[in-house]
């Protein structure tokens, strides 16, 4: 089989630095979007091809992960199935460093967004509680004598949880 053998084994770092990994990554992402859409709408390849206005062969290529997509075709297909195809470029050295610490190079953006929303809601809730406490203190200082009334540093407000920075009066 081999005449000129590869001399060095391909390491994880080699793989993450190779275009092949990122091409496969995008193909898999697109496959999952299309497959989810087909499952959700109970469509077969032919029906999906008719719906989005491409050939059945093209859908097969996408589902087989064999197509090297033109950007315009990829975007067309994504928007046809109701998805906005964001693209995000991250520093490759940072990705490799993360991988060395057993953190996946793959980013699940949907999960990331859900986590961020959850965190945001938590922050707003904590901040609102703090405002209510401050208002209550201003109305009735005797009831909550320890409440912080000094100027609020906006930066600190974002970096420190309110309950630790300010005296908890609840």
């Amino acid at each position, binding site marked *: 089989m081999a005449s000129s*053998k590869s001399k060095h*084994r391909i390491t994880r770092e080699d793989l993450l630095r*190779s275009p*092949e990994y990122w091409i496969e990554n995008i193909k*898999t992402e697109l496959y999952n979007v299309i497959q989810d859409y087909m499952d959700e709408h109970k469509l077969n390849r032919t029906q999906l091809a008719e719906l989005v206005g491409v050939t059945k062969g093209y859908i097969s290529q996408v*589902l*087989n*992960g064999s197509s090297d997509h033109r950007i315009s075709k990829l975007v067309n297909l994504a928007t046809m199935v109701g998805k906005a195809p964001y693209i995000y470029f991250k520093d490759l050295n940072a990705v490799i460093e993360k991988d060395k610490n*057993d953190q996946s190079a793959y980013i699940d953006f949907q999960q990331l967004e859900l986590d961020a929303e959850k965190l945001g809601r938590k922050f707003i809730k904590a901040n609102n509680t703090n405002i209510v406490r401050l208002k209550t203190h201003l109305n009735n200082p005797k009831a909550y004598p320890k409440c912080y009334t000094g100027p609020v540093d906006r930066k600190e407000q974002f970096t420190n949880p309110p309950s630790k920075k300010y005296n908890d009066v609840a």
Partner: protein
Amino acid sequence: MHKFALHKNIYSSSKIQFYNLINEGIDQFHAFEERLETQYNSEFKSLASSILQLCDGRNLPHGKRRKIEGLKNCVELRSRNHRLYYIKIPEHGLIICLGGTKKNQKKDINRIKALRKLLLKQIMDHGKLKIKTQNN
């Protein structure tokens, strides 16, 4: 001495474990990589990417992964000209048993059938396969 042991696959993660089968002292995954001509490096990277993606819990496109008919828990990872076969064995994870070409697919599937039998026999007779550490 036992015929089979395992190496942890370098593309494996802590979430999903992939192992390379060591058959009579030869790591089958490394042997496959070394047999490949440099012109197929790109295909090897594509197969390795599939392992990495499976470790992230992602579903692969139909053309990249296929269950082998009539052979329980045996899966084939596919590139244009090459195939990589793995078996899921309880309490062991996923074991890459063999790599080969598309041309020799039928022969390789028969070899996998035979290998699987021998593997399960060794596990039945001598317990879990030993995981060896790799030198490099």
